């Protein structure tokens, strides 16, 4: 069915109350072409591998797919290449290099070559530092009233982008959060047991 026909169908009042799963999957295929995987523009392959692992450690595969399956690395690459200003991107990449320096110092190898336990140990340190940095930044921004475009701390940036990239992906939105663009029902206040 043509996009125009689908929309015509949707525009007719009769169809709407019972929007069929069929019509909805058509919606999906209409939009499928919109988000093609881009070639990487900001990250080299080593940086990309590091970002991919950190993102997956933040939101790992469980009974649902994780950050890697949602291609969060590609989203982060896009933000570094086309959204952050140069200084912010440089700060991110320096933070990424620092992760390797720390793992070299602690474990004698680059982050991607560490064991899972070693990676988690370093992640915990980075996460604790990010929490401190977040508080400092919030205080400073409340005073200056000039919010920065991104967290100043590398891990803070990494976490924010990972979450955004994951939950706005098709996997995160539909599989993890069970959301749909056209909700199956609506109500103001419903007990959760009555929902699932």
């Amino acid at each position, binding site marked *: 069915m043509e996009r125009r026909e689908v929309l015509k169908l949707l525009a007719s009042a009769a169809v709407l109350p019972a929007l069929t799963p069929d019509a909805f999957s058509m919606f999906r295929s209409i939009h499928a072409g919109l988000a093609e995987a881009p070639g990487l523009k900001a990250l080299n392959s080593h940086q990309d591998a590091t970002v991919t692992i950190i993102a997956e450690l933040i939101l790992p595969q469980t009974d649902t797919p994780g950050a890697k399956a949602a291609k969060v690395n590609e989203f982060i690459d896009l933000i570094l290449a086309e959204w952050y200003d140069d200084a912010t991107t440089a700060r991110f990449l320096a933070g990424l290099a620092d992760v390797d320096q720390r793992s070299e110092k602690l474990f004698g190898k680059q982050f991607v070559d560490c064991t899972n336990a070693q990676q988690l140990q370093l992640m915990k340190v980075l996460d604790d530092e990010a929490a401190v940095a977040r508080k400092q930044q919030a205080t400073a921004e409340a005073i200056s009233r000039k919010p920065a475009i991104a967290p100043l701390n590398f891990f803070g940036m990494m976490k924010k982008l990972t*979450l955004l990239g994951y939950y706005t992906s098709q996997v995160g939105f539909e599989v993890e959060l069970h959301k749909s663009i056209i909700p199956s029902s609506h109500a103001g*206040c419903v007990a959760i047991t009555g929902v699932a």
Partner: protein
Amino acid sequence: MCRHYGGGVAMAANTYDAIVIGSGMSGGWAAKELTEKGMQTLVLEAGRSIVPEVDYVEHVPPWGVKFRGLRDRKAESINRPIQSQIGDEWNAKFFVDDKENPYTTDSDKPYLFLRGRHVGGRSVMWGRQTYRLSDLDFEANLKEGLGVDWPIRYKDIEPWYNYVEDFIGVSGQAEGLPHLPDSKFLPPMEMNCAELAVKEAIAGKFPDGRMMTIGRVAILTESHRGRAACHYCGPCQRGCITRSYFSSVNSTLPAAQETGKLTLRPFSVVHSLIFDSKTRKITGVRVIDGQTREAMEFHARIVFLCASTLESARILLNSTTPEFPNGLANSSGELGHNLMDHIFKGGATGTIPGHEDHIQMGNRPNGIYVPRFRNIKQKHPAFLRGYGFQGGGHREGWERGSDMPGFGVDFKNMLKNPGPWRFNFTGFGECLPNHDNHLEIDKNKVDAWGIPALKINCQWRPNELAIYKDMSVTAAEMLEAAGAKDIVASTAQSLPGEGIHEMGSARMGRDPKTSVLNEHNQAHDVKNLFVTDGSCMVSSACVNPSLTYMALTARACDYAVGKMKRGEL
């Protein structure tokens, strides 16, 4: 749907019964009313056509836009530094290119002029909040000796509110408040758990009569006049393929089209009006074609100016003649003056404890409303008039994770579930008419079509600032009454214009010496000119104004066509 011009039959070349300038909220209504009353009507619209099947993007998922909702920050900082402050990544295309559409201000008086240029104007992206004014508003200037008196009262506009609401469809809850009259309502949308709790906590608690109701909104909660009920996808501001919210494109323009008397001409940038000093009437309109830049003229017996508050004033200020060296229909000197907007963003947020086993289903495109409660029963010591609150409750989503410690399986599973209930109140406050808040032509600046641009001179004054200050206090009081935790008062304050409720630049009034328009939106100085957008407003009230623009437009059309049919115009 309104894709091409044509359909209407021109009489002589480029000559019609009526010309409507602008196809937005008010222009759409003028087009509908005039064509339905038999007038061959030309609608001149500066921008492009909107084709719903192509342009509406409400069902595009977040992964369907390049930056997943973060917007194209770098490109916008160059071409759209002002408009980038409104809308979202999906509907940014409905707001103008700032380079093509410049305006100036003094550096210490910033003003945000936020708007679109396309068929439907801002009715395509508006927030759909729909409220009536009352006699509390219509009588205020007279009682307080401010500005001029409204030349109408509630009884004059009430039938036209009914008439407009009956067509557009307004959902809401009747409350019987004299100062916020009920509309003709479709069934109300439902409050969520936090909102029900806050509503109950507020009720009867405050001697000033504070109460909370569901937002009154021009969205259909049941099918209405051939348009389908809302399906709760949420982002109406990106369009609506089921036409469930009111816009010109969804409603009034199709109705006008159906009469066979509408000629809609997109890419028609009105430069100025042509005045005949013998008849003291407008004979036509000067237009620059938006694409070819060709200059042309169109003629009609009456002109409805509906280009929006700032743009209508600009067209009149650019229409100078020997009789009107300071702008057409400006013998009073009030044209461009008394510019108002609602001051907003005062308020507070908090966490509503409990209700964690409950959620809201669907994406309700509406919030709550707290009607004005200041200066109703008791006079407030610090300011005149008042404000209302919009806002509502929601459960925190995955976004909260960025500000929380943790990562890994437990972190992911925690974010899968909604967080605590949050609640916010955002105030919209009345702005007093002030002669010094004014528009003028900047002689050193033209737009992309060579038309002189506006210089906007507008500032908040002590009464607005006192209102703003009070918003955070009373919002926090209500949250406290509801047992909220982590209550934070807002520190953000809107710039003039940011409320996008600009109005007053060609006010109505009883006296031609102190006002531009009479009680029928007819220019005192030029009898076949009607200005029916927000420029006509004499005071700003504190409610979202578009319903009033629509009602006044329908009322003025009825008057104008009646006069024409009796040969008096």
